[in-house]
């Protein structure tokens, strides 16, 4: 089953500059796992050391934040697309 993941600008150097990558899987988590299998360099920027998605990494399934669905267990259908969208944050301390 083919699905597309949209890659944001800062992660494109890790996907050979591709703006989107074709992946397969039955859940959001499986699609992301397939993505990082194909492009290993993405891993440290998407996942914290405990293996969880970093909290400033937003993943949208067809424009819906997966936090409001079933997170990485959210099932996907053929043709669904994922977008990885950075939360940009910072500050004094």
């Amino acid at each position, binding site marked *: 089953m083919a699905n597309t993941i949209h890659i944001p600008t800062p992660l494109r150097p890790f996907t050979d500059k591709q703006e989107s990558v074709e992946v397969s899987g039955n859940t959001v988590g499986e699609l992301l796992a397939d993505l990082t299998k194909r492009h290993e360099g993405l891993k440290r920027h998407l996942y914290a050391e405990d293996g969880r998605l970093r909290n400033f990494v937003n993943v949208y399934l067809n424009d819906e934040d997966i936090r409001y669905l079933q997170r990485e267990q959210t099932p996907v259908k053929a043709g669904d697309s994922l977008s990885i969208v950075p*939360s940009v944050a910072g500050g004094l301390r």
Partner: protein
Amino acid sequence: MKLSLQAGVGAAIRNHGVEAYPDECCGAMIGRDGIVTRTYALPNATEEGPRRRFRIRPQDYREAERQATESGADLVGFYHSHPDHPARPSQYDLDHAWPVFSYVIVSVREGVAEDMTSWRLREDRSVFDEENLEEHVN
């Protein structure tokens, strides 16, 4: 590593920092190949106190990226201000940084813009490296 700001870009960042003072300002930098041609001011959506934090909402990020792409340019990075603190990245900045982007920080002391610096996350996420910031006057 070098980041060049075309004429007017540095002034736009400083002015935004001064306007937002004592809060932090933030915005996107659009350009190509290490040259920033324009900035795009964004709302600071932090819920942790805008005097010491900034956050750019995902929808604003997407809009900035879309604007860059539509104008045939790239999203080069983001800027923010440090009110009454030096223009050096904090641990919090490091923890939240993305690779490749340039992060410009302007220090604003008592409402006056002072130093401006630019930083990039090292590939292994361990530290920020300062890049040479070049401002074009005209």
